[in-house]
């Protein structure tokens, strides 16, 4: 499973960071850092990734390849 971020759509609301700090981080300027960009998520982070996608207020996160 992967989680894709649409960087154009991201406005830095930070909900993903609160839900999945192991995957997402906002830098000092409020821009998104995605620690698993373009790579498979470890199994133990799959729930956090789903949660992050669910709370993004502008629907900028998409879970792909979920079994």
């Amino acid at each position, binding site marked *: 499973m992967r989680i894709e971020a649409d960087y154009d759509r991201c*406005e830095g609301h930070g*909900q993903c960071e609160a839900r999945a700090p192991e995957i997402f981080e906002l830098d000092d*300027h*409020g*821009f998104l850092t995605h620690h698993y960009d373009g790579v498979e998520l470890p199994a133990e982070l799959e729930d956090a990734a789903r949660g992050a996608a669910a709370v993004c*207020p502008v*629907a900028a996160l998409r879970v792909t390849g979920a079994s």
Partner: protein
Amino acid sequence: MTTTATSPQYDADVYTDAALLEPYEHYRALRELGPAVYLTAHDAWAVARYDDAKAVLAAPEVFRSASGIALNEPANAAILGCTLASDGEHHAHLRRIVAHRLTPRALRPVRHTVTEAAEELVAGLVARGSFDAVGDLARALPLSVVPDFIGWPEEGREHLLRWAGANFDSFGPLNERARAALPQCGEMAAYGAALVRDGNVLPGSLGAGVLEARDRGEVTEEQAMMLMLDYLAPSLDTTISAVGSAIWLLGTHPEQWDRLRAEPGLIPNAVQEIVRLESPIRGFGRLAARDTEIGGVAVPAGSRVLVLYASANRDERHFADPDVFDVARPEAPEQLGFGYGEHGCAGQGLAKMEVAALLEALARTVTRFELGRPERGLNNLIRAFSSVPVRVHTG
């Protein structure tokens, strides 16, 4: 496409005074009836369940905002072309021009301004001991922050709350409240147009940014007029509603206030929970661009669809014990009170910042909110108290 043979219907007018004051039993009935329920009184399909509401908001190419936001044509015509009531590339373009100033990213530098304003306001009110949590607290902060931020000149500000309320009343069905509101929406539009014509906005503000975009040819004069209003009306009543509800909820649930005082880190989550439980915006409309379905219910092209945020946020299919106020509720950030997706509230960063700043300031000194008799306002779109008398206890 799977569709049900008969579509569920609901005959009650959900915009009567009684229904606006006590909407939650109507919402429960609508959720029970199905994923999309035809409102015979309003010629619209209510979407009252969480999953379906979110799915509709996530499909803006099918469920359009242009001509779709309000439940009546005159209001839809009046707002056509503003960011709220536009779609696709046009919407993305308008949103880029203004919304980037409202993102949490852009707001980082104003955080201290909001925090200071909140602290000063709260200190004055706590010293007084008793005050109206709506008139003195909830209205004061947005009015001290938002018009400056948008760049409205001092003159004309006295009309802002009346105009903003009218703007939201106009979005309902064409009932008496909406009819009375439409001329006032016209006044507001005329005022915004004059601001653009005369360039009468504060330097460095969001409004000044709109005029610069016009000067660069990125938006037309007419679009600039719409953009001037786009972010003003929605930034006042909504936040005011949330703050009034916050004090009422925390006054009626003292154990939740104790919890927030003990763990101020929960305040951002509490703000989400307040918006979930007492959603300031009841819901917004959409227009079905083609024959489609919502949760298996067939919805024909041209149908009005009413996405009920306030019902989705109490959907027992998504939220455990949805009527319970719990500042630590883990799924509170999933609430749809700010909408969702492309049209998700652009000002939510500012709104959350304002409410949290007030609660943080209050949490430092206030131990109890002793409530008087609250009064509700009546608005087609906004759920809010018009007055919440409170005496605060400290120490």
